């Protein structure tokens, strides 16, 4: 563990406090404005909602373009394209490229993991070039290891290699996070590569969740992007996470949340210069070794690895969006309340990505090679994203009715007092365009309905969007504000493993 100086500690705490302080100050400021200057408060809210509606329309257009990319990617024969690269002067041969896929396993059952392995086995890619790594947590228990071995026996002959690494519990300097587990596996795998004299930049490491099921073209698409990239080891490769494993079985409430999460990733992929890795992603083994693997003490290892590489390469690192899907489980539970709780906890864990802000800022302080403007742009964007996440739904859902509820005599008698609900109502109606677009795209992306699922579920795929206001109120911003408050007050979040309850076919 590195020793932190007093000055560093103060700076780190400052950057930890800043996001939460900003969000809370803004929300309290809006409430005070509504109470003490209701006309100004109402004007601010109208401006904010207008901004939000325009932003929604802009993002909807990006979503439509992203969806078009997704369709295009689906029709492409990536393997042939990757092969053609050799004739186009690519310095690497397709045959040399190997794919290592790490599945971190804690206490997930065999029936969660096996469909993911099966999806790998169905890949349209030479399976002898795929190395499967089960990164098993020792604290998960012997049963988990035994289940891993069972799978190994079934699939050992299918792939080039099938490795199991057990991550010992209680290593000094580590937290109980997924990052610590996959880092251990990656280090062990490095020894394997050294032993077999395989060049690191010939190996692409995909870090998945144990419920991640890849599209059959995933590795072809990934290989193409890797080979065709001029700085291939200075990039991460990000697929689109969709939550289709149990989409026909999950609760409507949870479905809408996860669909919008997928859409958010699709949209983010359009903003290449700001894109950051999220959930399942791939990168070169060389990069991993260079940046010393995933952080072992952070919960948001998926985005943290990007920032680590970004700082390591002094800003010369980015994420390549691949419009190819990997499918995961929707966090759900047998009861609606349980589902809401699981969703809340999962979103809070995602929002805990705000922990990257102090880490990045501390690194920026010490780095002299990243241009100042670039640092500023990245910092503002990172802070701005988390600020918006924690505040928008609270302003729109909770604070916008306040001028009506608490209107005083003066406000009630003014034109704006009467117009306010009409204007905000009209603006909210405009978001219907975005919701209709979301419905159409979500329906067209749906996997085929399993035979045992009743037809009424098709109707629910439309009616589920009625949950949107409820989600806006409770799941959209509150988990993010919760995460920022915890970071601000130093009550750091522990890693919460999302229960995997996907459809088991």
């Amino acid at each position, binding site marked *: 563990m590195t020793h932190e100086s007093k000055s560093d500690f103060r700076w780190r705490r400052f950057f930890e406090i800043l996001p939460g302080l900003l969000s809370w100050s803004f929300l309290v400021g809006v409430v005070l404005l509504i109470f003490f200057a209701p*006309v100004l408060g*109402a*004007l601010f809210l*109208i*401006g904010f909602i*207008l*901004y939000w509606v*325009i*932003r929604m*329309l*802009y993002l909807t*257009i*990006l979503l439509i*373009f992203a969806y078009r990319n997704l369709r295009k990617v689906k029709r492409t024969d990536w393997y042939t394209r990757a092969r053609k690269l050799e004739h186009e002067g690519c310095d690497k041969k397709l045959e040399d490229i190997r794919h290592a896929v790490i599945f971190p396993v804690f206490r997930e059952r065999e029936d969660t993991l096996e469909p993911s392995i099966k999806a790998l086995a169905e890949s349209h890619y030479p399976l002898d070039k795929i190395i499967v790594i089960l990164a098993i947590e020792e604290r998960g228990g012997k049963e988990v290891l035994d289940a891993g071995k069972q799978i190994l026996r079934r699939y050992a002959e299918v792939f080039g290699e099938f490795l199991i690494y057990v991550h010992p519990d209680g290593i000094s300097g580590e937290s109980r996070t997924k990052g610590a587990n996959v880092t251990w596996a990656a280090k062990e795998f490095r020894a394997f590569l050294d032993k077999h004299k395989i060049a690191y930049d010939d190996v692409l490491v995909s870090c998945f969740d144990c419920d991640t099921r890849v599209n059959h073209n995933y590795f072809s698409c990934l290989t193409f992007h890797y080979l065709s990239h001029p700085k291939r080891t200075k990039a991460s490769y990000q697929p689109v996470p969709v939550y289709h494993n149990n989409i026909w079985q999950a609760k409507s409430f949870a479905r809408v949340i996860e669909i919008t999460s997928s859409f958010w990733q699709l949209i983010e992929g*359009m*903003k*290449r*210069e700001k894109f950051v890795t999220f959930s399942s992603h791939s990168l070169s083994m060389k990069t991993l070794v260079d940046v010393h693997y995933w952080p072992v003490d952070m919960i948001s290892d998926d985005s943290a690895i990007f920032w680590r590489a970004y700082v390591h390469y002094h800003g010369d690192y980015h994420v390549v969006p691949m419009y190819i899907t990997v499918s995961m489980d929707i966090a759900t539970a047998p009861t609606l309340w349980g589902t809401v709780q699981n969703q809340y906890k999962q979103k809070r864990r995602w929002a805990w990505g705000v922990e990257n802000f102090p880490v990045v800022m501390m690194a920026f302080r010490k780095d002299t090679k990243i241009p100042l403007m670039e640092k500023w742009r990245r910092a503002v964007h990172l802070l701005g994203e988390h600020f918006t996440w924690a505040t928008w739904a609270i302003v729109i859902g909770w604070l916008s009715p306040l001028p009506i509820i608490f209107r*005083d*005599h*003066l406000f*009630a*008698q*003014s*034109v*704006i*007092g*009467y*117009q*306010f609900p009409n*204007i905000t109502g009209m603006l909210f109606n405009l978001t219907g365009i975005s919701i209709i677009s979301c419905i159409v795209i979500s329906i067209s992306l749906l996997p085929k309905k399993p035979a045992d699922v009743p037809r009424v579920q098709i109707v629910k795929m439309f009616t589920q969007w009625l949950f949107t206001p409820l989600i806006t109120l409770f799941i959209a911003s509150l988990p993010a504000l919760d995460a920022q408050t915890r970071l601000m007050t130093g009550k750091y979040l522990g890693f919460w493993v999302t229960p995997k309850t996907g459809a088991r076919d």
Partner: protein
Amino acid sequence: MPIKYRLILFYSFVILFFILLPVFTLYSLGYRINFKTQRLERLGMIVLRTTPDDAFILFNGKKLRQKTPAKLTNLFPGEYSLTLKKEGYRPWSSKVPVKPNWVTCLDTIHLFPEKIEFEPVSEIKAARFFLSPKSRKMLVAGELAEDRGLWLLDFFQEDEILVLDDRQMASAGMEADETLAVHWSKDEKAALLEKGGKFFLLDFKKPNRLIDLKNAVGFYPQSAGWSAGSPDTFYYLHEGNLGAYSFKRKRNQPGLISGIKTFKQQESFIYFIDSKSGSLMRWSEDLLETNILGEIPGYDPAANYEIIVNPQGNILPPELEADVLKSTGEFYDLNTSKKIDGIRQAVWDKTGKNLLLKGDGRCLVLEESASGIEKLRQTESIEIPKIIAQISWFDAAKLLMISRRSAYLRQLGAETDSYSQSMFSFPSGWREIFWDARFSQLYFIEGENGRQGGGLVRVNLSQGPVSKLLQNMRETMSDSFHFIYEVRKNK
């Protein structure tokens, strides 16, 4: 999509936002372009609510598609002529001013039926009657068949019970003459009877059992008023101290506030005058906090004062909440520190925007300005002909004036006296009369003569026969009358 195109799209939306932001801001604040003058002008609007609703609107002589209740928006400042028509009701017309940025709120317009129906309330030969504040119940002193005494009429249960017989009344010295006063509890399940400085409590669940306050509390208070929060508790004033008594728990709490001259209870507030300083103060039952509302100019500790509380007190700025009337006929508007002489009574209308000050031979109308921040200003001084015996608010724009034989409406702001034409004539005059502004109904006892009881009659001046109104309510009602009323009011 290449970054270049995405940035073009992004900046297009940024520009769109900055174009729309001032447009929405100005629109919200009521600004529109007047194409006639080619100038940006700030508009106002009119809000119309009528009882009953669904009245046609003639706006500057042009019939509008919408009916009442309605919001007439985007109106340039000025004066507009407005006529409301509904079949079976007399048309309502007025010149309505529209001010920039402000809403002209005409939300208490009562349409007057063309045919007036008098309706007997009960078969009791009544000497006096006391309507409850929620208009749900009535205490009637009178005679039915062989039984004489105080009767409780429940309009919702359609029930009449004798709650206090004649003998009990006589033994308590509570004869039903004009000095008898009734203070209804908030749930209207009990009442305090006051006469000649004596107070008795009557729980309607226990008929014929009067509780003498001298026995319960130990003395007769100077005045009393029921708590809004706990229906079995009333506040009382005794020797300058405010106390509270809960008759169900038989618990007395003397000395809640000391040094009080007089008090008035409304909603969960108690308004009182501090006997030393002459400050008008307000104590909250819920928050247990006291605020100063104003100072009585030239306060005289020896004089008697009455506190006039605005019915919308809790939503008004504190300085407009209440005024004070001195028993010698001086009215103090504490907001302006203005004194008006010769005032015997002050009555706010239901909206809490207009105050009627009654004196001898004239009345004044004070109107709160549209902005609510300016002070009350006098709008009208009306000479009252001698034939007028009673005067009350009919709605926010009209006064109801009653002579011995007829009822008249006086439109405020009218150039000529509109009470030269009567609304209706009383069949045989009246003896007791009570205007129930809540439901626009007038209660009276027929006949002008003597001490003998007369028929108790009511007439509804906007909804048609009261029995129909009550029937409609009963069909949709829960037990909460107030709730239904609020729903109707906000419809």
